[in-house]
Structures are given as structure tokens and as C-alpha cells.
């Protein structure tokens, strides 16, 4: 069988990059010289990003539909790579000072990214599962990375067990769908599953699939791992979990549900709507009493998963466009917030919200970025989050008006706990008034995140156009 390897250049380049980083780390004489690995990883990731961008506009399938390359997958691949680059770049000094093993750290991050990219492009269940597991196993290692820290190990074990359970549920769901239809290919599935052919077996498989994916995107009621894991994991990894893992999981959620099971939309739309509503309610309400900023952001990310799920309900190009747009702006807001968390942790060795007192005096830039990121997540105009929520919720005003109300009310509730952090940062006097010095890389990352959040809020047209094109390509198979 002839395989066009050039279509796989992104994946091959990323795998080679991971192996080179690993080999370099092994051959370099001592741990102290390994510090260049981060810079090398960023350089390599930038090249891979360039290769991925050059695929924009390609529409092709490999191995009889096992692997799909279209603008939709390229869009999410760019998202995953941008997330990896910004996180590695913005937290390099944190990683140098707090994580002793650079070789394992950087190569595992690259392999996690590779898993995401395989998953995003997957055209059948087997490829999907391989990508998912590559990502999950890498993340288990990364979550438990601080070997001497009890919290990190606890988070690692929780993530290991719950990721295992969710994978089992997901696999069972996939096997039932295979049993009911006789195919593992998503495109074939779309032809086989039409309104008249739905068996109870298929519905059962669908429910298990929702549960399995629910774990991965940390939607309530499958969210319980998220707060503990987000709190215990090293902060860069928390950021990557919140952005990369979630975005990639949403990509395959869209691919399987809207792409493969569109014929069963009646069955899953209500289910997902209820899940979205629970996530929005629970995420926002439980975030209120949190005192640890990473836990607060974890609950807020559960709520964000609920918002993004709204885009799936209509299975329309507009909805998918909303998902993609929101995923991208959520990336900048989340990375902005977490890079600030990293920078503050380096100085204060604390993730408590109380330790952010007087941050506006100690580091005006960090405080400003934190404020803008949080307000964007809350959906305050003119920031990007408002535009994103607008795109998402306008798609469902016909059928799910109740969900729109829940979304609006809970967005207002979320402003309360987001602004509480702002209040601590701007009103309270700092206990230790020494300024927080941040490296140039941190400053650049923060400015990128801030500018992107502001610009995309005021002038969203370019990204909106791109996600429109990507959403269209998804429906042309």
C-alpha cells in the first residue's frame, strides 16, 4: 500500500524533535548544561508550527480514512502547538528552578503534543485512542513530575486512576458503536448512522462515549479529578492540561459527534445540553469559595468546558466555528493567567489568592495580565471572551433558550470570583512590597497573551474568518 508520508510531516517532525531533545539530554554531560534544552524545544516547536501552517487548505485522507487532514484539524494543531510554545517559553525559568529533570520534562511535553496532534487528525477510533493514550500517559508523568512533593504525587495517582477509568469507559463506548454499526471509521459512521437506523446498542455506546469524553474535557459530573490534579501538578503542566488537553479533546468530540454521529443529533444534543448546564452551574458556583488560585482556575475551566460544549449542540458550521474561536481565545486567557501564577509562585512560593495582595504595586504587568485574562474568561466586553461567548450562544437561541439564560446568569456570577482576585491585587497592601522581577521571556509571553486577548476582542474578524473556513472544511467530507 502506498502511503503519502508528506501528509504526515507535522507528526514526523514532532516525533523527531522529541527524540532529538531526548538524545541531546542523554549526551549532554551534566544536568546543569541541560538548560539549553528548553530553548531548543521552542526552536523545534516553532519549525513544526511553520510546517503545520503550510498545511492550511489541504484536504486529504490517509490509509483509507484513518487519518484526516483538513482545515479543521490544522486549526486545532496550530492551537496545540501555540499553546506548547507559549507555555514552554513563558515558564522556562520556573522549570529551570523548580523541576530538576529537563530532559524528561521537555521531551515528555513534546510527546504529549504529538499525542494531541494525532488525536486531532484521527479519522478512526483506533488512531483516536492511540493519540489519546499517548497524550494521557505523557500527562500522567508530567503531573507527578515533582517527585518529592506529596501534592504532585497525589495528583499524579489521581490522574492515573481516573484517566484509566475514563479510557475504559470510552473504549467500551467505542466498541459498542463498532458493534452496532460495524465500522471504526468516522466518515463511514456518518453514512451508516442516519435517523432511521438507531438501535438501543448505539444509544448505549453514545452515552458511554459522552462519559468518556466528559472526563477528558472535565465537564461536570465527570470533573472531580480536575481541581486536585490542577492544584498538585507543576503550574506549566496545569496550564497545558487546561488548554492543550482540553482543546484536543474538544476537537475529537466535535469530530466524533458532529462528524460521525450527526444522524443521532436528537439523542445527544439534549444530553450534552444538560451536561453543559451542569458544568456551567457547578464550575462557577464552586469556584466562589476557593482560596487557592489554581483550584479556582480549575473550577473556572470546568465552567469554560460547559460554555464550549454549547457550540456542539446544533451540529452546524456556526457552532463549530464558535467552538474553535472560543478555544483559541481561551488559550490566551488561560496561558496569561497561569504564567502569572508561575511568576508569583517563584517569588512567594505560594498559590493562595491571599499572596496576590498588592500585586499591582509589585508587578503592574502581571496584575494587568491577570485582570484582563480573568475578565476575558468572565466575558466582559470589549475583551475576546465576550465575542467568543456571543458566537457560541447565538447558535442555540432557537432550541435551547433555557441554556442561554443559565449561561448569561452564571457569567455574571463568575464576574464575582474573578473580580475578587482583582480586588486583592489592586486594593490590598502587599505584605512584602519588593517588586517581582520577571525574565524577558515571561514578559514577552504575558504581553502576547494580553495583546491577543484585547485585539481579538475589539477586532475579531481575522480569527473569526479563519475559524469559519476551518468549520466549513469540516463539513465538506
Amino acid at each position, binding site marked *: 500500500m502506498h502511503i503519502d508520508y508528506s501528509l504526515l510531516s507535522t507528526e514526523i517532525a514532532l516525533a523527531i524533535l522529541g*527524540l532529538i531533545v*531526548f*538524545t541531546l539530554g*542523554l549526551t549532554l554531560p551534566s544536568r546543569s548544561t541541560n538548560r539549553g534544552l528548553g530553548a531548543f524545544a521552542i526552536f523545534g516547536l516553532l519549525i513544526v508550527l511553520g510546517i503545520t501552517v503550510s498545511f492550511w487548505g489541504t484536504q486529504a485522507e490517509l490509509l483509507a480514512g484513518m487519518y484526516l487532514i483538513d482545515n479543521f484539524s490544522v486549526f486545532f494543531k496550530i492551537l496545540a502547538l501555540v499553546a506548547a510554545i507559549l507555555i514552554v517559553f513563558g515558564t522556562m525559568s520556573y522549570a529551570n528552578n523548580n523541576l530538576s529533570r529537563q530532559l524528561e520534562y521537555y521531551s515528555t511535553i513534546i510527546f504529549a503534543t504529538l499525542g494531541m496532534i494525532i488525536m486531532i487528525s484521527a479519522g478512526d477510533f483506533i488512531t483516536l485512542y492511540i493519540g489519546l493514550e499517548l497524550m494521557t500517559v505523557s500527562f500522567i508523568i508530567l503531573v507527578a513530575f515533582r517527585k518529592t512533593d506529596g501534592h504532585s504525587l497525589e495528583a499524579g495517582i489521581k490522574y492515573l486512576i481516573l484517566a484509566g477509568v475514563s479510557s475504559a469507559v470510552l473504549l467500551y463506548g467505542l466498541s459498542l458503536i463498532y458493534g452496532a454499526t460495524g465500522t471504526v471509521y468516522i466518515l463511514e459512521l456518518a453514512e451508516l448512522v442516519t435517523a432511521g437506523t438507531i438501535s438501543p446498542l448505539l444509544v448505549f455506546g453514545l452515552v458511554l462515549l459522552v462519559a468518556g469524553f466528559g472526563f477528558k474535557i472535565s465537564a461536570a459530573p465527570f470533573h472531580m479529578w480536575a481541581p486536585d490534579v490542577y492544584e498538585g501538578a507543576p503550574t506549566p503542566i496545569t496550564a497545558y492540561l487546561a488548554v492543550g488537553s482540553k482543546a484536543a479533546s474538544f476537537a475529537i468530540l466535535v469530530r466524533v459527534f458532529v462528524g460521525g454521529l450527526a444522524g443521532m443529533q436528537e439523542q445527544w444534543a439534549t444530553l450534552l445540553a444538560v451536561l453543559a448546564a451542569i458544568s456551567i452551574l457547578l464550575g462557577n458556583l464552586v469556584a466562589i469559595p476557593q482560596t487557592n488560585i489554581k483550584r479556582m482556575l480549575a473550577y473556572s475551566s470546568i465552567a469554560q468546558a460547559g460554555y464550549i460544549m454549547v457550540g456542539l449542540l446544533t451540529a452546524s458550521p456556526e457552532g463549530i466555528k464558535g467552538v474553535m474561536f472560543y478555544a483559541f481565545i481561551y488559550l490566551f486567557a488561560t496561558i496569561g493567567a497561569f504564567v502569572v501564577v508561575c511568576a508569583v509562585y517563584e517569588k512567594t512560593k505560594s498559590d493562595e489568592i491571599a499572596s496576590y495582595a498588592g500585586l499591582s504595586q509589585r508587578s503592574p504587568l502581571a496584575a494587568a495580565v491577570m485582570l484582563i485574562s480573568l475578565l476575558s474568561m468572565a466575558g466582559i466586553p470589549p475583551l475576546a471572551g465576550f465575542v467568543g461567548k456571543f458566537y457560541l450562544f447565538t447558535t442555540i437561541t432557537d432550541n435551547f433558550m433555557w441554556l442561554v439564560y443559565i449561561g448569561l446568569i452564571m457569567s455574571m456570577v463568575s464576574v464575582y470570583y474573578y473580580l475578587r482576585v482583582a480586588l486583592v491585587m489592586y486594593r490590598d497592601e502587599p505584605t512584602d512590597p519588593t517588586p517581582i522581577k520577571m525574565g524577558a521571556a515571561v514578559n514577552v509571553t504575558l504581553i502576547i497573551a494580553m495583546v491577543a486577548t484585547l485585539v481579538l476582542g475589539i477586532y475579531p474578524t481575522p480569527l473569526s474568518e479563519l475559524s469559519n473556513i476551518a468549520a466549513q472544511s469540516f463539513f465538506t467530507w
Partner: protein
Amino acid sequence: MINWLGVLIFLLSGAAFGVIGIGISYLIQPRTKNRYKLEVYESGIPVKASAWVRFRNQYFTYALIFVIFDVEILYLYPWAVSFVELGLSGLIKMFIFIFILVLGLWYAWKEGAFEWR
């Protein structure tokens, strides 16, 4: 449904084999009870102590490294069987595969997994 009749007969006759065998031996076996009969391994090596002994957790690194060779054999064997059909491209792919595995071994070596401390 008639297609499944064969499966049913298979299951029943399979169960019958077990039941009849054990049943007959239960009926005709001579029953003697002594010390040797009650040992864990009858006619085997005499039991020295409990099997619940503690051993070093460093064994687990050996188990992990074993996986490297295990996976290697798992894929090398089918490749060797169809070596001629796969030709040069198969050889190159196999070298890439082994290279990645060797990286793992190299890493384990550097981390001191082979030193018994």
C-alpha cells in the same frame, strides 16, 4: 437461532467433560490422608517458608527494562517472518523502531537502573 445450536452443544459437552471426569475420580479414588498429601506441592520441593516475603523494589526497574526487550521481540518476529516481502523499507522502519527502543535502554542505563545498590 439454529446457528447457535452448535455453540450450545459445544458448551454442554465441554462442561460434561469436566463434570464427568471429576465425578468418576471422586467415586473411584482411594482416599488416604497423611502429612505429605497436605503439602502445598505434593511430591514437590519441601516448603521452606511463606511466599509473602519482602523483596527489593528495585526489581521493578528490571521488570520495566524487560518490557523493552519484550516489545522488541514481539515486533521483530513477525518482521523476520515476512522479511522478503517487506524488503528495504521494512528494514529501515525496523531500524527506526529499534533505535527508539535503544534510546529507552540508554536512558535506563544512564539513570543507573542496572546497578544493584
